[in-house]
């Protein structure tokens, strides 16, 4: 119904942060559904990052830990901000300064593989798949900047841990482990984060990818623990669009909890409004909890392009 659709749209606007105006060309290739057809995570990550970077060539984000590497001849169209004015004054020649990334940062990608991450609606990619794509892309991006990248996967406990390395061959380990991840087990996110805070002794960037189905006060404690260890924390809450909208066409459904297998008959049209309100409250609490602990929080849905997540990640890093 038109009013129903309108309501749905309004709800989405409230829960989704403002997305950047992605250019149509690259965005098409960064669509998760398209990327899902690429069998190799490495290829996928490369396609994402290269496409993403080429789309940003006129953007201000050239790297967050850059250092000067060389000069090159100025060509018309180059950004005048990188023109070496001193050299111009001395030699009356136009040169552009080029930089390269800092290689000292260590970044750990934390992926929630609990059973709830298995959910996908109508054959779309699951939340875990999306998380893997995102992790692969971020790993490729970080490795391209010579940062050390590690991988941690957990459900009730940490079951996969790849220490952070910056060498190129390390990526294959990361991608290999990523491709092996499967959803299962219950979510005990706060406990897992506390456990990781003890494992990750060297401070760095921690990227947490989860659906965050845990109580906010418990998460707040876990975030504080990680922040106490000196980590910069970036949280991606990955949700299926239908987890937010609860938009089912069936008049009645038998819902089964992914983790407890508890079943419950539901009339979607009756439950929808109450569910949406509670989901909004949960997301808002997550946002408040993240803000209170200076955690970079972003809620993304599995139908959003990956470059949106990369854009969000980079923009927040630049602000630091």
């Amino acid at each position: 119904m038109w009013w129903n659709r309108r309501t749905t749209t309004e709800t989405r606007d409230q829960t989704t942060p403002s997305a950047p105006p992605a250019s149509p060309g690259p965005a098409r290739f960064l669509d998760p559904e398209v990327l899902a057809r690429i069998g190799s995570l490495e290829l996928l990550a490369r396609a994402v990052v290269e496409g993403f970077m080429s789309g940003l060539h006129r953007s201000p984000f050239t790297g967050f830990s850059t250092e000067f590497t060389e000069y090159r001849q100025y060509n018309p169209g180059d950004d005048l901000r990188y023109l070496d004015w001193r050299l111009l004054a001395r030699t009356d020649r136009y040169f552009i300064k080029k930089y390269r990334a800092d290689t000292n940062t260590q970044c750990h990608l934390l992926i929630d593989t609990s059973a709830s991450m298995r959910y996908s609606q109508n054959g779309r990619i699951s939340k875990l798949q999306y998380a893997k794509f995102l992790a692969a892309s971020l790993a490729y991006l970080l490795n391209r900047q010579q940062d050390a990248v590690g991988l941690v996967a957990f459900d009730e406990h940490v079951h996969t841990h790849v220490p952070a390395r910056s060498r190129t061959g390390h990526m294959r380990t990361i991608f290999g482990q990523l491709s092996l991840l499967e959803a299962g087990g219950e979510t005990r996110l706060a406990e897992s984060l506390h456990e990781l805070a003890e494992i990750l002794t060297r401070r760095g960037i921690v990227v947490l990818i989860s659906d965050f189905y845990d109580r906010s006060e418990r998460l707040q404690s876990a975030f504080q623990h990680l922040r106490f260890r000196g980590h910069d924390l970036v949280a991606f809450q990955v949700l299926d669009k239908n987890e937010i909208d609860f938009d089912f066409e069936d008049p009645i459904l038998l819902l089964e909890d992914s983790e407890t297998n508890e079943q419950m008959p539901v009339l979607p049209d009756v439950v929808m409004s109450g569910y949406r309100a509670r989901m909004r409250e949960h997301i808002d609490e997550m946002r408040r909890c993240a803000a209170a602990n200076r955690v970079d929080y972003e809620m993304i849905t599995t139908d959003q392009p990956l470059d949106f997540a990369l854009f969000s990640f980079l923009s927040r890093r630049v602000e630091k």
Partner: protein
Amino acid sequence: MWFLNPLFWLGIAAVAAPILVHLVRRTRARKIEFPALTFVRQVPQRTIRRRTLRNLLLLILRCLAILLIVVAFTRPFFTRRSAAKDSSAGATVILVDSSLSMRREQMFAAAVQRAAAVIDEARNDERLALLTFGNRYEVVSRLTVDKARLRSTLRTLSAGWEGTDYEQALRGAESLLGEQKTGGPKRVVMISDFQASGWSQANASFKLSSDVQFQTFDVGGSNPQPNVAVTNVDAHGVVFGQKYLENLTVQLSNFSDTPRDRLEVNFQINDQTVEKREVTLNARETKVVEFTGFNVAEGANRCVIEVVAADFPADNKFYFTIRREAPAKALIVESASRGRSDSFYLQSALSLNDALPFNFTVKTAGTVNPAGVAENALVILNDAGSLSSALADKLKKFVQDGGQLIISTGPHTDANSFNESLRDVLPVTFRESVQTKAAESVALTDVKFDHPIFEVFRESGRLAAAHVFGYLRSEPKPAANVLARYEDGSPALVEGTAGKGRVLLFTSSLGPSWNDLPLTPLYLPLVHQMIRYVATTDEGSWYGLGQTFRVAKESKGDPPAVDSPDGTRLTDSRLTPDGDLLVTGRQPGFYRLRYAARPEFAAVDLNPLEGDFAKMDFGAFINGVTGGSGSAQGREANRSFTNEEIESRQKVWWSLLLLALLLLLTESLVAQRIKVTKMVG
């Protein structure tokens, strides 16, 4: 409750449709793995329960609407029997109309079928009685609980030939219900075609008791069948000449609302067609056709008037008899006088009409042989003077035995002698003779114009112009009937009876001695009327159905055998104290009276009104019969007819459909509310 179309109950299967839909939709719940069940669980479950209840309400509304539609199509109706199931057993009298009009189509069979249904529907302990009725009622079975016997009796019934009298039938029913002493409801069930001719609101004099329920079943249909009938024939039953000189009038009636053109009317005597006519009758018109101048054979003649029409055939024929007899002897006794006879004017008047049934002989009182008086059928004492005692005695006996006597006075009449000698037969006692002064006269007054003698003078008024100069003052006896008086109040014409005979007395003269009547045009018709009047016999040309007629015994003493029109010999006849036979006409046609010398016939005809099939004013009938003060329940019962009519009056299906529509509307509103809740939610 009964159903006009019970087959539509098969449609009840349609109720399964919404139930199946409900079940199918309910079992189609898809199982989905969902991670955020925590938030779903936090939604109040009462919303879901309310929705479930609403769905159940929708299901019930849909099922109920379909059920009501199905029931509406079965056309249900309620009968009094079903309403009175719980009451104690009572008594019911079933009145089945067996009149002539019930012979139409299969009407009587339908009435019998309806009566059987009433018997079947009655409680086993209810007492039932069965009556058939036409003009009168016949108790077929008194109150009994033996239903089987009633049913078998019912099968033996057949429609009769009588007219209809609903009042008589109801009297019979009420009389039978009086035998019910054990209490309980009383009911009269009348099954008939309800002809208008069977009941007259103006003449209604009977009402059912207030505790009697009156139920009717009309098996006559709503459109009366068109009908043409011969409704009356006015003919002289006895004639004395070969040629029928009077007008034989035939009355034809068209009882329908459509005109009938060129109907053929046949007049037959002894199975030979005498004359044919063509008659056109407009809607609801009655027309008179006259026949005259036809020859009549000696003895009894069977006459039939038939209208040829392809409708109800029973009343298309009208039967009557004309018997030709030889003229009887009549004696005129006058006083001996010189010159012109006192009976000159009388003789002249009587000789001018061949149709008079007498051969007259004039004699003086002295020349009359008293023994021969009895040979005459009529004796006229025309100013006869004093009578010998022998003659007076014979005259008295003559009158007592049925002879007709006309007496006129005059100057020769000895009042005292008459008072003495004819005291037993004279209707008056003579007083003095009255003579008016010269050039004075008295007139006839106080004339009874409704009497057959004077009815022909009703319009003329000329009787008052007659001048009477002399008369015998008289005093009428108590039993006498004074037909006219003089101006002083003294009787002028007096009628009396003695024994089987009749005496007509004119206290003035039939000659010109005491009045100028013979010199006026009044004289001839007055004399003829007097002669005809005394000559009139009670014998008509036909009898009505149900009428009892007398069949005189044979000269040997035994009554003749009588065959009914269908040829069967009558056995249940009754005899009068004189030995004559009394026969009641039960069939239309000719009853053959088998006299040894020559057969005689008696014609019996139907009630002419029975051919009019127009329906009665039913409301007036019910009000008239129940007094209009019966209970509402009783009045409602009176409106019951056939099942179709009962159903048509009650129109339960209409209410059911309306209710179903309301349910569907409610269902739509509830469904819409659920839908809106879903969209807004």
